[in-house]
């Protein structure tokens, strides 16, 4: 399937979803529009626009028929990075800022784009986490989670 067509269909589906969900809200009248008025209006317009986009894609006018994934050889790395970010978010409050940040940076330096030497990765992660702790917690007084280390 052509990428243009796929993306238009996804947005069309999203638009239909917006419309269905907006219908559950009070729409009010034109004299006094309610909370559902604008979302429904926008949903209908988005549905219309995605249909136009779909028709344009069907007409095949787009010369660039090649898949946007053609150049992507590093998708595994991308998934690793995304997973590490999610894991960081979920573990942050348990592990605490310093430990979680150290582990995240270590992982990204070592398994991110190009593996750095272990010694370098460990030292770099430690310095960067401590530096951020100093700037955000001590200087800017951001409330970073202490976690199991307790500070």
């Amino acid at each position, binding site marked *: 399937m052509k990428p243009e067509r796929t993306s238009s269909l996804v947005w069309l589906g999203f638009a239909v979803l*917006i419309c269905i969900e907006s219908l559950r809200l009070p729409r009010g009248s034109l004299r006094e529009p309610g909370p559902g008025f604008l979302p429904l209006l*926008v949903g209908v317009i988005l549905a219309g626009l995605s249909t136009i986009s779909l028709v344009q894609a069907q007409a095949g006018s787009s010369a660039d028929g090649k898949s946007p994934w053609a150049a992507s050889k590093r998708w595994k790395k991308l998934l690793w990075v995304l997973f590490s*970010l999610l894991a960081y978010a979920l573990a942050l409050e348990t592990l605490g800022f310093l430990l979680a940040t150290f582990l995240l*940076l270590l992982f990204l*330096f070592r398994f991110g*784009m190009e593996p750095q030497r272990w010694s370098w990765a460990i030292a770099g992660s430690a310095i960067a986490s401590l530096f951020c702790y100093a700037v955000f917690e001590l200087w800017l007084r951001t409330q970073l989670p202490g976690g199991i280390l307790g500070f």
Partner: protein
Amino acid sequence: MDFFSNLQLAFSVIFQPDNLLFCFIGCVIGTLVGVLPGLGPVATISLLLPSTFHISPVSAIIMLGGIYYGAMYGGSITSILVNIPGEAASVVTCLDGYQMARQGRAGPALGISAFGSFIAGTLATVLIMMIAPPLARFALEFGPPEYFALMFLGLTVLTYLASGSMVKALMMACVGIFLGTVGTDTISGIERFTYRSYTLMDGIGLIPVIMGLFGISEVLLNIEEASKQEIYQASLSNLLPTLRDWKDSIFSIMRGTFVGFFLGILPGGGAVIASFASYAVEKKFSKHPERFGSGAIEGVAAPEAANNAASQGAFIPLLTLGIPANVVMAILLGALLIHNIKVGPLLIKDHPTLFWGVLGSMYVGNVMLLVLNVPLIGIWVKILKIPYPILFPLILLFCLIGVYSVNNNIYEVVIMILFGVVGYLMKKFAYEGAPLILAFVLSPLLENALRQSLIMSNGDFSIFFSRPISLLLILASLFLLFLPLLPGLRKRPQGGNLD
């Protein structure tokens, strides 16, 4: 108050030590992110937004503003030396700037872009001082229909100037408006699309969305493409442009300033479009248009002047009407709202120290940037050499901390990651983020103006056409919307990437 007493107020505010310090910090950070590819002013300003909650609103806006125009200076360094634009408004600078560097004229190229930016920035500040107060007085007449029409025009201009398909840009604007409606409705108090989520009750946060769409997604793309950069090893000894260089470029700088300034004021315009437009203008004006693209100094001077003038002109609609002209101004609007400052035509009267202080900071900031960029250029070139595999974990970390620290809410971090993936896919499928963000920020204002207008008119849509100002604005929007449909006019100007 006349011009000079305003000027005096402006300087008395900026020369307070803490304001001066924050202006300097903003300029340094701005230059830094301008230099670093993959981290633009948008992501940086949203990143630092939470840290400004603890300082006065005047200092906050001074610092964040400094980042924005500072990035315009820094962006040119990367464009000229590496042929990679440090941020989107410097894309055009690559064309002639890099060629100049290859011919051994990196010094004059960097010099003229710093001086051009300085001249443009200073002139733009004077222009703001002259234009903003009368415009704010005029805007006092605006009611909900005029505001609705103005925001509608802003969104239309942005989608019209989008680089890809206009249909796609309009779709993104719709998605942005929808995202802006999530949360508790301010008029009726009814929750919309929250699904009992505590995090969503206050609406989707601006910072997670921006950091996801502009920060995380950019890193993901860079990891995938992993471009090897090569820094041009040029001698940077003679930074001062020669008399000949000045003669060639002084009028280009002037033209760039005016083109940039007026495109910056226009809602939906901004530094990126300004730089492209002024390059085109210079090519038209030049007696030797064939020199452009092979190292013409005018091709560096004009767009660099334009992007600076535009980034400062963009403050006008924000500070006089309360309407952000572009994404960065949208974040600044968010910052002002967080500080409980009512943004609108009364801002100049109610908060004179804020308005004139910010303007004063622009004069001083431009001087600081000139010092930062001409004698200290060597430091920035060194920073350019940090390899991306070492840089990207730090950028990701800043995004994570930035979003978490807004509300200490893990779910906002998850929202950011989600929008990072969405933004990555949008870039892959050539959907632009800028219309989405602008629509997202304007959405609550737009909805209120629309609903209030309809209440005023008893449900009659003709209210938008019966009042002269709103009629004019709506007609202009409709003209832009239907222009691409007219035969023979199909080709829209390609504004490049608007992010």
